[in-house]
């Protein structure tokens, strides 16, 4: 099946490059360990054979579209990636007419480890309710019926603790954070050229490496993604010290679903919950 996906992607890529629809196709190729895929940028039809698609294609290529100078580009997107695409379209970071979207019905992505095969599905795939891309100009694979809502067992588990335990838990996490900002770089929702975290005036996050500052960073990072996070779990996957970052996003995702019946990136025009409102909604504050 995967190989057949690869074929379809290659053919489409060739066609797009030959008839000049796009000047670059962003897809996946086999990495240097000969196992796990890495992003590939194809400019000539001759090179399309490099393209592959399999269950190691973990990267969200949508982020490469953020370069506004680029001309028309084709990009291969999985279900979750497509939600990121919608998010960025709605926030006007990508010009739709310059992007040709090759949607791939995602088979599920495995944990990629250097130089070894893994059949272990990634965490995000357990949560995933969107294997079929929500936006695409060309679809590879047949749309699948999606699973019922993911339950938020992980969140519930954390909430079972006392406030004191939770405080302590996040305190420990904060102590381990080295503020390398890998989470930010990997996140499709984090694209600001100047991040609040590096602003010296106002100094929201002090430059000293201290738990309080890291706590501040992690909290606001999560909150800036409230109602925007497409739960791809990249932040957590790339974290060098394995902080449970998604847990924060998941908590907010759950609440956003409950209060606003909203899932980020499902459509290009549904406004994110924090930039809209209903006059007579009950949200459990000041009532």
């Amino acid at each position, binding site marked *: 099946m995967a190989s057949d996906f690869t074929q379809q992607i290659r053919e489409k890529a060739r066609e797009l490059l030959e008839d000049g629809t796009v000047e670059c196709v962003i897809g996946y190729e086999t990495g240097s360990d000969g196992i796990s895929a890495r992003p590939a940028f194809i400019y000539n039809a001759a090179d399309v054979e490099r393209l592959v698609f399999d269950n190691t294609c973990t990267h969200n290529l949508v982020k490469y579209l953020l370069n506004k100078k680029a001309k028309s580009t084709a990009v291969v997107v999985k279900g979750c990636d497509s939600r990121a695409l919608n998010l960025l379209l709605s926030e006007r970071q990508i010009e739709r007419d310059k992007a040709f979207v090759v949607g791939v019905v995602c088979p599920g992505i495995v944990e990629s480890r250097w130089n070894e095969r893994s059949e272990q599905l990634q965490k995000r795939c357990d949560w995933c309710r969107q294997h079929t891309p929500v936006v695409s100009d060309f679809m590879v694979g047949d749309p699948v019926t999606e699973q019922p809502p993911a339950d938020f067992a992980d969140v519930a588990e*954390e909430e079972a603790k006392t406030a004191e335990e939770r405080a302590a838990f996040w*305190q420990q996490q904060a102590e381990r954070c080295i503020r390398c900002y890998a989470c930010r770089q990997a996140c499709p929702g984090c694209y600001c050229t100047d991040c609040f975290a590096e602003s010296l005036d106002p100094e929201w996050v002090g430059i000293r490496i201290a738990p309080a500052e890291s706590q501040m960073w992690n*909290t*606001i990072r999560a*909150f800036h993604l409230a109602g925007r996070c497409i739960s791809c779990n990249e932040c957590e996957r790339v974290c060098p010290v394995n902080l449970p970052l998604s847990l924060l996003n998941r908590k907010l995702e759950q609440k956003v679903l409950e209060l606003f019946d909203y899932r980020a990136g499902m459509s290009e025009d549904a406004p994110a919950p924090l930039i809209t*409102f209903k006059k007579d909604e009950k949200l459990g504050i000041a009532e």
Partner: protein
Amino acid sequence: MSENSAPLIIGFLCNWCSYAGADMAGTSRAAYPSNIRILRVPCSGRVDPMMIVKCFQEGADAVLVAGCHPGDCHYNEGNYYGRRRFALLRELLDFMGVERERFRVEWVSASEGKRFAKIVTDFTNEMTKMGPRKAS
């Protein structure tokens, strides 16, 4: 956290309703505990969640945001946006160990001086009972 065991409460009051409400509490001599420190903001919609998180990170024991009643916002819609942001923020804070009780949002009109005093009194008592924040 403030040295004295008395809890430190930071209040953000919208200029048009709640700040005026607090003034009314003054003119009608409605007494309340002195723990609260009041910042004037144009609108509850101006209160940045980052600011609230910062308050807690820096050791405040509690935060109060007060704005116009829904429908009465001087800027028509400010408190509606605020309401959504705060609803989510409070969940996140609680999830991270800052008990939801410590972050309060209230709608106080310019005429509700006595009510403002009562809110602050109850809030302060509750916070004193809970004691200072653990951790950080």
